[in-house]
């Protein structure tokens, strides 16, 4: 585990790119996610069932991809409690063996509310979007006073 310092609101710039985050998805990770989340839908676990449902094979949970997008934002923020909103569309299937990359850009920054809006997209190794129309919103704590009472 590594510890990170929380980002300063003052250091955020509109148009700024977040560090990208790439994840290699495996059958084992999908199983582990099914256990941790309780979502044991057989389309994620049973190859035969997945094929009978018209899928190419088992697929990753959409919420696993969203968890990656979540992490791309909170790794940058350095504090999970700052994230207030997260949304997006599961635009494509993620299957075992895929390498998915989360990319984010600061869309806006409001000095009055200390809120920052980030646009997010997750693509696979072929450049296909698997999560799009992604939006995250963070709220930073009130600015600490820089002056000291006499």
């Amino acid at each position: 585990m590594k510890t990170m310092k929380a980002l300063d609101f003052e250091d955020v710039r509109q148009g700024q790119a977040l560090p990208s985050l790439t994840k290699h998805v495996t059958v084992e990770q999908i199983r582990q996610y099914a256990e941790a989340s309780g979502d044991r839908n057989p389309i994620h676990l049973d190859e035969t069932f997945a094929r009978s449902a018209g899928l190419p094979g088992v697929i990753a949970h959409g919420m696993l991809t969203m968890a990656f997008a979540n992490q791309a934002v909170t790794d940058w923020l350095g504090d999970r409690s700052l994230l207030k909103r997260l949304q997006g569309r599961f635009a494509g299937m993620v299957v075992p063996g895929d390498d998915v990359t989360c990319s984010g850009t600061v869309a806006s920054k409001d000095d009055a509310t200390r809120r920052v809006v980030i646009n997010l997209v997750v693509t696979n190794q072929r450049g296909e979007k698997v999560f799009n129309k992604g939006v995250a919103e963070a709220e930073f704590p009130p600015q600490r006073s820089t002056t000291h009472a006499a």
Partner: protein
Amino acid sequence: MTDARWVGRSYETPPYQVTEQSIRDYMEAVGDVRDDGELLAPPTYAMVYGFDAFWQLWTDQEVALDVAHLVHGEQRFSFQRPVRPGDRIRTTGRLTAINTRGDMELVTFDLNAIDEQDRPVSDGIALFIIRKP
């Protein structure tokens, strides 16, 4: 085609007891293990404490969604406060719309999670897509 008369039906999860182990299992599963000092669940952990609402909808024999052809299409979450070990969270899911787009059925499901003092923890909207077999 799912019968539109089920719009409005709601499901409440039993209280979900958040434990350190459950948060760590989730962090390991998604590969998000950074230590922030205090152990706070990653925000998308909302799908762990709220999952039973999805499950109740998917297994409701009267509504009878075609779950074999169901995929999660979109998801929105708002987080009112971070989640910690010791929290007991109840989530209410409500079927709020059933629409068709081409040969797909779109099912909208609202999520509302509260703590033991009935204070808001998170809200969500899930969109499920059911493909025609």
